Protein backbone atom coordinates (compact mmCIF):
# COMPACT_ATOMS: atom_id res chain seq x y z
CA UNK A 1 0.00 0.00 0.00
CA UNK A 2 1.31 3.44 -0.80
CA UNK A 3 1.76 5.82 2.08
CA UNK A 4 -0.66 8.56 2.88
CA UNK A 5 0.34 11.88 1.34
CA UNK A 6 -0.69 14.61 3.73
CA UNK A 7 -3.71 16.55 2.46
CA UNK A 8 -2.20 20.01 2.86
CA UNK A 9 0.79 18.99 0.74
CA UNK A 10 -1.50 18.16 -2.16
CA UNK A 11 -2.85 21.68 -2.62
CA UNK A 12 -0.67 22.57 -5.59
CA UNK A 13 -1.34 19.22 -7.24
CA UNK A 14 -5.08 19.63 -6.76
CA UNK A 15 -4.99 23.13 -8.27
CA UNK A 16 -3.12 21.74 -11.29
CA UNK A 17 -5.56 18.85 -11.50
CA UNK A 18 -8.46 21.29 -11.67
CA UNK A 19 -6.74 23.27 -14.44
CA UNK A 20 -6.13 20.08 -16.45
CA UNK A 21 -9.79 19.08 -16.07
CA UNK A 22 -10.83 22.52 -17.36
CA UNK A 23 -8.59 22.18 -20.42
CA UNK A 24 -9.98 18.69 -21.09
CA UNK A 25 -13.56 19.97 -20.94
CA UNK A 26 -12.73 22.93 -23.22
CA UNK A 27 -11.12 20.57 -25.73
CA UNK A 28 -14.27 18.51 -26.08
CA UNK A 29 -16.64 21.48 -26.06
CA UNK A 30 -14.66 23.08 -28.90
CA UNK A 31 -14.95 19.87 -30.90
CA UNK A 32 -18.70 19.74 -30.53
CA UNK A 33 -18.85 16.96 -27.94
CA UNK A 34 -21.72 16.86 -25.48
CA UNK A 35 -20.76 16.27 -21.86
CA UNK A 36 -23.07 13.59 -20.48
CA UNK A 37 -23.74 11.92 -17.17
CA UNK A 38 -24.91 8.33 -16.81
CA UNK A 39 -25.77 6.49 -13.59
CA UNK A 40 -22.93 5.31 -11.37
CA UNK A 41 -25.02 2.48 -9.96
CA UNK A 42 -26.10 -0.01 -12.59
CA UNK A 43 -27.81 -3.43 -12.62
CA UNK A 44 -25.48 -5.21 -15.05
CA UNK A 45 -21.82 -4.29 -15.67
CA UNK A 46 -20.07 -5.66 -18.76
CA UNK A 47 -19.02 -9.22 -17.91
CA UNK A 48 -15.22 -9.11 -17.91
CA UNK A 49 -13.22 -11.89 -16.30
CA UNK A 50 -10.60 -9.65 -14.69
CA UNK A 51 -12.58 -6.53 -13.73
CA UNK A 52 -14.56 -6.83 -10.52
CA UNK A 53 -17.50 -4.53 -9.81
CA UNK A 54 -18.42 -3.58 -6.24
CA UNK A 55 -21.98 -4.65 -5.28
CA UNK A 56 -24.22 -1.76 -4.24
CA UNK A 57 -27.69 -2.44 -2.82
CA UNK A 58 -28.51 -5.24 -5.23
CA UNK A 59 -26.90 -3.55 -8.25
CA UNK A 60 -23.25 -2.62 -8.88
CA UNK A 61 -21.07 0.47 -8.95
CA UNK A 62 -19.97 0.98 -12.54
CA UNK A 63 -16.50 -0.18 -13.56
CA UNK A 64 -16.83 2.09 -16.61
CA UNK A 65 -19.69 4.12 -18.14
CA UNK A 66 -19.22 2.22 -21.41
CA UNK A 67 -22.54 0.42 -21.71
CA UNK A 68 -24.75 3.43 -21.00
CA UNK A 69 -22.70 5.67 -23.27
CA UNK A 70 -22.99 3.17 -26.11
CA UNK A 71 -26.75 3.09 -25.61
CA UNK A 72 -26.62 6.85 -26.16
CA UNK A 73 -24.70 6.29 -29.43
CA UNK A 74 -27.39 3.82 -30.48
CA UNK A 75 -30.00 6.47 -29.70
CA UNK A 76 -28.39 8.94 -32.08
CA UNK A 77 -25.89 10.93 -29.95
CA UNK A 78 -22.79 11.12 -32.15
CA UNK A 79 -20.11 12.80 -30.00
CA UNK A 80 -20.28 12.38 -26.24
CA UNK A 81 -17.81 12.55 -23.37
CA UNK A 82 -18.05 11.93 -19.66
CA UNK A 83 -15.79 12.51 -16.65
CA UNK A 84 -16.95 10.23 -13.85
CA UNK A 85 -16.01 8.02 -10.96
CA UNK A 86 -15.56 4.30 -11.55
CA UNK A 87 -14.96 1.53 -9.05
CA UNK A 88 -12.94 -1.66 -9.35
CA UNK A 89 -12.74 -4.04 -6.45
CA UNK A 90 -9.29 -4.85 -5.11
CA UNK A 91 -7.30 -2.47 -7.32
CA UNK A 92 -4.89 -0.51 -5.15
CA UNK A 93 -1.27 0.42 -5.66
CA UNK A 94 0.89 3.38 -6.61
CA UNK A 95 -0.97 3.57 -9.95
CA UNK A 96 -4.37 2.29 -8.80
CA UNK A 97 -7.25 3.48 -6.69
CA UNK A 98 -10.29 1.29 -6.41
CA UNK A 99 -12.37 4.49 -6.83
CA UNK A 100 -10.86 6.56 -9.61
CA UNK A 101 -11.77 9.16 -12.21
CA UNK A 102 -12.36 8.08 -15.77
CA UNK A 103 -12.67 10.14 -18.92
CA UNK A 104 -14.55 8.29 -21.64
CA UNK A 105 -15.47 9.60 -25.04
CA UNK A 106 -17.26 8.09 -28.01
CA UNK A 107 -17.52 9.26 -31.54
CA UNK A 108 -19.74 7.85 -34.27
CA UNK A 109 -18.40 7.33 -37.78
CA UNK A 110 -14.70 6.93 -36.97
CA UNK A 111 -12.35 4.06 -36.13
CA UNK A 112 -9.53 3.56 -33.64
CA UNK A 113 -6.93 5.18 -35.89
CA UNK A 114 -8.86 8.46 -35.90
CA UNK A 115 -9.16 8.16 -32.17
CA UNK A 116 -5.36 7.91 -31.82
CA UNK A 117 -5.09 11.31 -33.47
CA UNK A 118 -7.81 12.78 -31.29
CA UNK A 119 -6.09 11.38 -28.20
CA UNK A 120 -2.83 13.02 -29.24
CA UNK A 121 -4.58 16.36 -29.66
CA UNK A 122 -6.38 16.04 -26.32
CA UNK A 123 -3.23 15.30 -24.35
CA UNK A 124 -1.26 18.05 -26.06
CA UNK A 125 -4.08 20.44 -25.08
CA UNK A 126 -4.23 19.10 -21.53
CA UNK A 127 -0.45 19.37 -21.07
CA UNK A 128 -0.18 22.91 -22.49
CA UNK A 129 3.56 22.29 -22.90
CA UNK A 130 5.55 20.71 -25.75
CA UNK A 131 7.54 18.39 -23.45
CA UNK A 132 6.97 16.86 -20.08
CA UNK A 133 9.35 15.61 -17.45
CA UNK A 134 8.14 12.45 -15.75
CA UNK A 135 10.16 10.32 -13.31
CA UNK A 136 13.44 11.54 -14.78
CA UNK A 137 12.28 11.00 -18.37
CA UNK A 138 12.16 13.84 -20.87
CA UNK A 139 9.07 13.07 -22.96
CA UNK A 140 8.51 14.88 -26.25
CA UNK A 141 4.82 15.43 -27.02
CA UNK A 142 5.37 16.64 -30.59
CA UNK A 143 3.58 14.59 -33.26
CA UNK A 144 3.55 11.92 -34.46
CA UNK A 145 3.75 9.65 -31.45
CA UNK A 146 5.17 6.15 -31.60
CA UNK A 147 2.86 3.40 -32.83
CA UNK A 148 3.78 -0.24 -32.30
CA UNK A 149 1.65 -3.35 -32.67
CA UNK A 150 1.30 -5.78 -29.78
CA UNK A 151 3.04 -8.42 -31.95
CA UNK A 152 6.00 -6.09 -32.57
CA UNK A 153 6.21 -5.20 -28.89
CA UNK A 154 6.46 -8.85 -27.81
CA UNK A 155 9.19 -9.53 -30.37
CA UNK A 156 11.13 -6.36 -29.57
CA UNK A 157 10.90 -6.29 -25.77
CA UNK A 158 9.91 -9.79 -24.60
CA UNK A 159 11.98 -11.86 -27.01
CA UNK A 160 9.03 -14.07 -27.96
CA UNK A 161 5.91 -13.93 -30.05
CA UNK A 162 2.59 -12.78 -28.68
CA UNK A 163 1.09 -16.09 -29.78
CA UNK A 164 3.68 -18.08 -27.82
CA UNK A 165 3.06 -15.87 -24.80
CA UNK A 166 -0.69 -16.56 -24.99
CA UNK A 167 -0.05 -20.27 -25.47
CA UNK A 168 2.14 -20.39 -22.36
CA UNK A 169 -0.25 -18.25 -20.31
CA UNK A 170 2.33 -15.51 -19.66
CA UNK A 171 0.85 -12.66 -21.74
CA UNK A 172 0.07 -10.50 -18.70
CA UNK A 173 3.39 -11.19 -16.93
CA UNK A 174 5.47 -10.32 -20.01
CA UNK A 175 3.36 -7.25 -20.63
CA UNK A 176 3.92 -5.98 -17.09
CA UNK A 177 7.54 -7.03 -16.56
CA UNK A 178 9.10 -6.59 -19.99
CA UNK A 179 6.94 -4.50 -22.31
CA UNK A 180 5.17 -1.78 -20.30
CA UNK A 181 8.42 -0.44 -18.79
CA UNK A 182 9.67 0.23 -22.36
CA UNK A 183 6.62 2.08 -23.67
CA UNK A 184 6.34 5.84 -23.99
CA UNK A 185 9.80 6.66 -22.64
CA UNK A 186 10.89 9.38 -25.08
CA UNK A 187 7.53 9.94 -26.80
CA UNK A 188 4.09 8.60 -25.89
CA UNK A 189 3.44 5.18 -27.43
CA UNK A 190 0.28 3.66 -28.87
CA UNK A 191 0.38 -0.12 -28.68
CA UNK A 192 -2.32 -1.55 -30.96
CA UNK A 193 -3.88 -4.57 -32.66
CA UNK A 194 -4.40 -6.80 -29.64
CA UNK A 195 -4.87 -10.56 -30.14
CA UNK A 196 -8.50 -11.45 -30.82
CA UNK A 197 -8.64 -13.27 -27.47
CA UNK A 198 -8.01 -9.88 -25.77
CA UNK A 199 -10.58 -8.03 -27.87
CA UNK A 200 -13.11 -7.27 -25.09
CA UNK A 201 -15.63 -4.92 -26.76
CA UNK A 202 -13.51 -4.17 -29.85
CA UNK A 203 -14.28 -5.28 -33.39
CA UNK A 204 -11.86 -7.60 -35.18
CA UNK A 205 -9.56 -5.99 -37.70
CA UNK A 206 -10.82 -5.76 -41.25
CA UNK A 207 -8.71 -8.23 -43.25
CA UNK A 208 -6.98 -9.80 -40.22
CA UNK A 209 -9.39 -11.40 -37.76
CA UNK A 210 -6.53 -12.70 -35.58
CA UNK A 211 -6.33 -9.23 -34.00
CA UNK A 212 -8.79 -6.66 -32.72
CA UNK A 213 -8.93 -2.93 -33.44
CA UNK A 214 -7.90 -2.00 -29.93
CA UNK A 215 -5.11 0.27 -28.67
CA UNK A 216 -3.66 1.42 -25.42
CA UNK A 217 -1.67 4.58 -24.81
CA UNK A 218 1.44 4.57 -22.59
CA UNK A 219 3.39 7.57 -21.37
CA UNK A 220 6.54 6.98 -19.33
CA UNK A 221 5.68 3.29 -18.90
CA UNK A 222 2.30 4.20 -17.45
CA UNK A 223 -0.88 2.93 -19.09
CA UNK A 224 -3.10 5.95 -19.72
CA UNK A 225 -5.94 4.84 -21.97
CA UNK A 226 -7.64 1.90 -23.70
CA UNK A 227 -9.63 2.29 -26.93
CA UNK A 228 -11.60 0.31 -29.46
CA UNK A 229 -13.19 0.47 -32.84
CA UNK A 230 -16.40 -0.61 -31.21
CA UNK A 231 -17.93 -4.00 -31.87
CA UNK A 232 -21.48 -3.43 -33.14
CA UNK A 233 -22.48 -7.06 -33.65
CA UNK A 234 -24.80 -8.06 -30.78
CA UNK A 235 -24.47 -11.79 -31.51
CA UNK A 236 -20.68 -11.71 -31.31
CA UNK A 237 -20.79 -9.41 -28.27
CA UNK A 238 -23.13 -11.81 -26.45
CA UNK A 239 -20.84 -14.73 -27.27
CA UNK A 240 -17.86 -12.83 -25.78
CA UNK A 241 -19.82 -11.83 -22.68
CA UNK A 242 -20.88 -15.45 -22.16
CA UNK A 243 -17.27 -16.58 -22.47
CA UNK A 244 -16.15 -13.92 -19.95
CA UNK A 245 -19.02 -14.83 -17.63
CA UNK A 246 -18.06 -18.50 -17.64
CA UNK A 247 -14.45 -17.57 -16.92
CA UNK A 248 -15.69 -15.47 -13.98
CA UNK A 249 -17.65 -18.48 -12.75
CA UNK A 250 -14.61 -20.76 -13.06
CA UNK A 251 -12.57 -18.25 -11.01
CA UNK A 252 -15.29 -18.29 -8.34
CA UNK A 253 -16.14 -14.63 -8.98
CA UNK A 254 -19.46 -12.90 -8.46
CA UNK A 255 -21.77 -13.39 -11.48
CA UNK A 256 -23.41 -10.38 -13.15
CA UNK A 257 -26.74 -10.39 -14.98
CA UNK A 258 -26.35 -10.23 -18.77
CA UNK A 259 -26.69 -6.57 -19.89
CA UNK A 260 -29.66 -7.29 -22.15
CA UNK A 261 -30.71 -3.69 -22.79
CA UNK A 262 -27.20 -2.87 -23.94
CA UNK A 263 -27.09 -5.91 -26.23
CA UNK A 264 -30.41 -5.04 -27.84
CA UNK A 265 -29.30 -1.41 -28.35
CA UNK A 266 -26.04 -2.57 -29.92
CA UNK A 267 -27.88 -3.70 -33.06
CA UNK A 268 -28.76 -0.05 -33.70
CA UNK A 269 -25.38 1.42 -32.79
CA UNK A 270 -23.53 3.08 -35.68
CA UNK A 271 -19.86 2.36 -36.38
CA UNK A 272 -17.99 4.25 -33.68
CA UNK A 273 -14.78 4.39 -31.71
CA UNK A 274 -14.52 4.90 -27.99
CA UNK A 275 -11.83 5.31 -25.39
CA UNK A 276 -11.44 5.17 -21.62
CA UNK A 277 -8.67 7.34 -20.18
CA UNK A 278 -7.57 7.30 -16.55
CA UNK A 279 -7.60 10.99 -15.67
CA UNK A 280 -5.77 10.52 -12.36
CA UNK A 281 -2.96 8.85 -14.29
CA UNK A 282 -2.85 11.62 -16.88
CA UNK A 283 -2.54 14.12 -14.03
CA UNK A 284 0.26 11.98 -12.51
CA UNK A 285 2.23 12.14 -15.75
CA UNK A 286 1.68 15.86 -16.28
CA UNK A 287 2.61 16.67 -12.67
CA UNK A 288 5.49 14.19 -12.42
CA UNK A 289 3.83 12.42 -9.48
CA UNK A 290 5.29 9.09 -8.39
CA UNK A 291 2.06 7.89 -6.81
CA UNK A 292 -1.62 8.32 -7.66
CA UNK A 293 -2.06 9.33 -4.00
CA UNK A 294 -0.35 12.64 -4.76
CA UNK A 295 -3.00 13.78 -7.25
CA UNK A 296 -6.23 13.09 -5.35
CA UNK A 297 -7.61 14.77 -2.24
CA UNK A 298 -8.36 11.55 -0.38
CA UNK A 299 -7.22 7.97 -0.66
CA UNK A 300 -9.24 5.15 0.93
CA UNK A 301 -6.65 4.97 3.71
CA UNK A 302 -7.26 8.66 4.53
CA UNK A 303 -10.97 8.10 5.21
Amino acid sequence: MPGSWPLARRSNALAERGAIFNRVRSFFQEKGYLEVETPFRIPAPAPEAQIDAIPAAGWFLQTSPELCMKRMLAAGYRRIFQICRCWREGERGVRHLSEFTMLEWYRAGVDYLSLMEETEALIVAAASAPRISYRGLDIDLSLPWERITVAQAFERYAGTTVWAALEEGVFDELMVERIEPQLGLSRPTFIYDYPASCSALARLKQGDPTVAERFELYIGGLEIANAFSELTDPVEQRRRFESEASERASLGKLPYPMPEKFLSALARMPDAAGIALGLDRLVMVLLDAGSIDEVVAFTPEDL
Partner: protein
Amino acid sequence: MYTAADLRKGLKIAIDNEPYIITAFDFAKPGKGQALYRTKLKNMITGSTLDRTYRSGETFEPANLEDRKMQYLYKEDDHYCFMDNDTFEQIHINEAAMGDAVNYLIDNLAVDVLIFRDKAIGVDVPNFVNLRVTQTDPWVKGDTSGSDSKPATVETGYVLRVPPFIEEGELITIDTRTGEYSTRVKG
Protein backbone atom coordinates in the same frame (compact mmCIF):
# COMPACT_ATOMS: atom_id res chain seq x y z
CA MET B 1 -1.62 -17.44 5.94
CA TYR B 2 -1.50 -14.49 3.58
CA THR B 3 -2.99 -14.14 0.10
CA ALA B 4 -1.49 -12.12 -2.75
CA ALA B 5 -3.80 -9.23 -1.83
CA ASP B 6 -2.08 -8.99 1.59
CA LEU B 7 1.38 -8.45 0.09
CA ARG B 8 2.90 -5.07 0.87
CA LYS B 9 6.25 -3.47 1.58
CA GLY B 10 7.61 -4.64 4.93
CA LEU B 11 5.59 -7.89 5.09
CA LYS B 12 7.67 -10.89 6.12
CA ILE B 13 6.93 -14.21 4.47
CA ALA B 14 8.51 -17.65 4.45
CA ILE B 15 9.95 -19.03 1.23
CA ASP B 16 11.54 -22.50 1.48
CA ASN B 17 11.37 -22.08 5.27
CA GLU B 18 13.55 -18.98 5.24
CA PRO B 19 12.33 -15.52 6.27
CA TYR B 20 12.06 -12.92 3.52
CA ILE B 21 11.01 -9.30 3.81
CA ILE B 22 9.28 -7.49 0.95
CA THR B 23 11.47 -4.46 0.21
CA ALA B 24 9.47 -3.19 -2.77
CA PHE B 25 5.92 -3.92 -3.82
CA ASP B 26 3.90 -2.99 -6.86
CA PHE B 27 0.33 -3.80 -7.83
CA ALA B 28 0.05 -4.15 -11.59
CA LYS B 29 -2.84 -4.87 -13.92
CA PRO B 30 -2.31 -4.66 -17.67
CA GLY B 31 -5.42 -3.38 -19.46
CA LYS B 32 -8.20 -6.02 -19.30
CA GLY B 33 -5.62 -8.44 -17.85
CA GLN B 34 -5.26 -10.06 -14.47
CA ALA B 35 -4.00 -8.50 -11.27
CA LEU B 36 -0.29 -9.14 -10.69
CA TYR B 37 1.61 -8.52 -7.49
CA ARG B 38 5.26 -7.69 -8.13
CA THR B 39 7.68 -7.94 -5.26
CA LYS B 40 11.33 -7.50 -4.45
CA LEU B 41 12.23 -9.83 -1.60
CA LYS B 42 15.25 -9.81 0.66
CA ASN B 43 16.36 -12.93 2.47
CA MET B 44 16.60 -11.76 6.08
CA ILE B 45 19.47 -14.13 6.86
CA THR B 46 21.71 -14.00 3.80
CA GLY B 47 20.66 -10.56 2.52
CA SER B 48 20.29 -11.94 -1.00
CA THR B 49 17.45 -10.48 -3.05
CA LEU B 50 15.03 -11.79 -5.64
CA ASP B 51 12.18 -10.50 -7.81
CA ARG B 52 8.95 -12.45 -7.82
CA THR B 53 5.60 -11.78 -9.51
CA TYR B 54 2.54 -13.41 -7.97
CA ARG B 55 -1.04 -13.83 -9.15
CA SER B 56 -4.28 -13.49 -7.22
CA GLY B 57 -5.09 -16.66 -5.38
CA GLU B 58 -1.50 -17.51 -4.42
CA THR B 59 -0.97 -17.95 -0.70
CA PHE B 60 1.97 -17.38 1.61
CA GLU B 61 3.08 -18.47 5.06
CA PRO B 62 4.23 -15.77 7.46
CA ALA B 63 7.96 -15.81 8.20
CA ASN B 64 8.54 -17.99 11.26
CA LEU B 65 10.09 -15.29 13.41
CA GLU B 66 9.91 -14.75 17.12
CA ASP B 67 9.85 -11.14 18.28
CA ARG B 68 11.16 -9.86 21.58
CA LYS B 69 10.32 -6.47 23.07
CA MET B 70 13.60 -4.64 23.59
CA GLN B 71 14.94 -1.14 24.02
CA TYR B 72 17.54 0.60 21.88
CA LEU B 73 20.66 1.51 23.84
CA TYR B 74 23.46 2.70 21.58
CA LYS B 75 25.45 2.17 18.42
CA GLU B 76 29.01 0.86 18.51
CA ASP B 77 31.04 0.61 15.30
CA ASP B 78 28.69 -1.08 12.85
CA HIS B 79 26.56 -2.74 15.52
CA TYR B 80 23.43 -1.58 17.27
CA CYS B 81 22.87 -2.62 20.88
CA PHE B 82 19.46 -3.49 22.36
CA MET B 83 18.41 -4.58 25.85
CA ASP B 84 15.61 -6.81 27.11
CA ASN B 85 13.98 -4.78 29.90
CA ASP B 86 12.93 -7.87 31.84
CA THR B 87 16.11 -9.95 31.74
CA PHE B 88 18.58 -7.07 31.07
CA GLU B 89 20.11 -9.28 28.40
CA GLN B 90 21.84 -7.25 25.70
CA ILE B 91 22.18 -8.19 22.06
CA HIS B 92 23.96 -6.66 19.06
CA ILE B 93 22.62 -6.43 15.55
CA ASN B 94 24.73 -5.71 12.49
CA GLU B 95 23.96 -2.47 10.65
CA ALA B 96 23.30 -4.33 7.39
CA ALA B 97 20.44 -6.24 9.03
CA MET B 98 18.82 -3.08 10.44
CA GLY B 99 17.42 -1.74 7.17
CA ASP B 100 15.44 1.50 7.34
CA ALA B 101 15.05 1.15 11.12
CA VAL B 102 18.30 3.06 11.60
CA ASN B 103 16.48 6.22 10.49
CA TYR B 104 14.30 6.16 13.59
CA LEU B 105 16.53 4.94 16.40
CA ILE B 106 16.62 7.33 19.31
CA ASP B 107 17.81 6.39 22.76
CA ASN B 108 15.44 4.09 24.65
CA LEU B 109 13.14 3.52 21.64
CA ALA B 110 11.04 0.39 22.19
CA VAL B 111 11.42 -2.03 19.29
CA ASP B 112 10.62 -5.63 18.42
CA VAL B 113 13.82 -7.58 17.84
CA LEU B 114 13.20 -10.37 15.33
CA ILE B 115 14.66 -13.75 16.19
CA PHE B 116 15.08 -16.61 13.73
CA ARG B 117 16.49 -19.89 15.11
CA ASP B 118 17.89 -18.11 18.19
CA LYS B 119 19.64 -15.42 16.16
CA ALA B 120 18.61 -11.74 16.04
CA ILE B 121 18.20 -10.84 12.38
CA GLY B 122 16.45 -7.47 12.43
CA VAL B 123 14.15 -5.09 14.24
CA ASP B 124 10.66 -3.70 13.81
CA VAL B 125 10.21 -0.09 14.92
CA PRO B 126 6.79 1.37 15.85
CA ASN B 127 4.64 2.52 12.90
CA PHE B 128 4.90 6.10 14.13
CA VAL B 129 7.85 7.74 15.86
CA ASN B 130 8.33 11.31 17.07
CA LEU B 131 11.65 12.90 16.13
CA ARG B 132 12.98 16.41 16.60
CA VAL B 133 13.93 18.53 13.57
CA THR B 134 17.58 19.56 13.89
CA GLN B 135 17.96 21.41 10.61
CA THR B 136 15.60 22.97 8.09
CA ASP B 137 15.51 26.25 6.22
CA PRO B 138 13.14 28.90 7.58
CA TRP B 139 9.89 29.57 5.79
CA VAL B 140 9.82 32.90 4.05
CA LYS B 141 6.31 34.31 4.31
CA GLY B 142 4.98 35.27 0.91
CA ASP B 143 7.23 32.72 -0.78
CA THR B 144 5.79 32.41 -4.27
CA SER B 145 8.05 29.62 -5.51
CA GLY B 146 5.06 27.31 -5.25
CA SER B 147 7.03 24.74 -3.29
CA ASP B 148 4.75 22.83 -0.94
CA SER B 149 7.50 21.04 1.00
CA LYS B 150 11.14 21.42 1.99
CA PRO B 151 13.89 19.11 3.25
CA ALA B 152 14.46 18.68 6.97
CA THR B 153 17.01 16.72 8.97
CA VAL B 154 15.88 15.02 12.17
CA GLU B 155 17.92 14.05 15.22
CA THR B 156 18.86 10.63 13.83
CA GLY B 157 20.36 12.26 10.74
CA TYR B 158 17.50 11.10 8.55
CA VAL B 159 16.40 13.62 5.90
CA LEU B 160 12.80 13.85 4.67
CA ARG B 161 10.35 16.35 3.11
CA VAL B 162 8.20 18.36 5.48
CA PRO B 163 5.63 21.16 5.04
CA PRO B 164 7.10 24.68 4.84
CA PHE B 165 5.78 25.75 8.26
CA ILE B 166 7.91 23.23 10.19
CA GLU B 167 10.73 24.94 12.08
CA GLU B 168 13.98 23.78 13.64
CA GLY B 169 13.54 22.31 17.09
CA GLU B 170 9.98 21.13 16.46
CA LEU B 171 8.90 17.58 17.13
CA ILE B 172 7.31 15.76 14.16
CA THR B 173 5.68 12.37 13.72
CA ILE B 174 7.04 10.16 10.96
CA ASP B 175 5.29 7.12 9.49
CA THR B 176 8.09 4.55 9.57
CA ARG B 177 6.31 2.33 7.03
CA THR B 178 6.72 4.97 4.35
CA GLY B 179 9.46 7.15 5.83
CA GLU B 180 7.23 10.18 5.27
CA TYR B 181 6.22 13.12 7.42
CA SER B 182 2.88 12.50 9.08
CA THR B 183 2.08 15.39 11.44
CA ARG B 184 3.47 18.05 13.76
CA VAL B 185 3.49 17.22 17.48
CA LYS B 186 1.75 20.08 19.30
CA GLY B 187 3.15 21.65 22.43
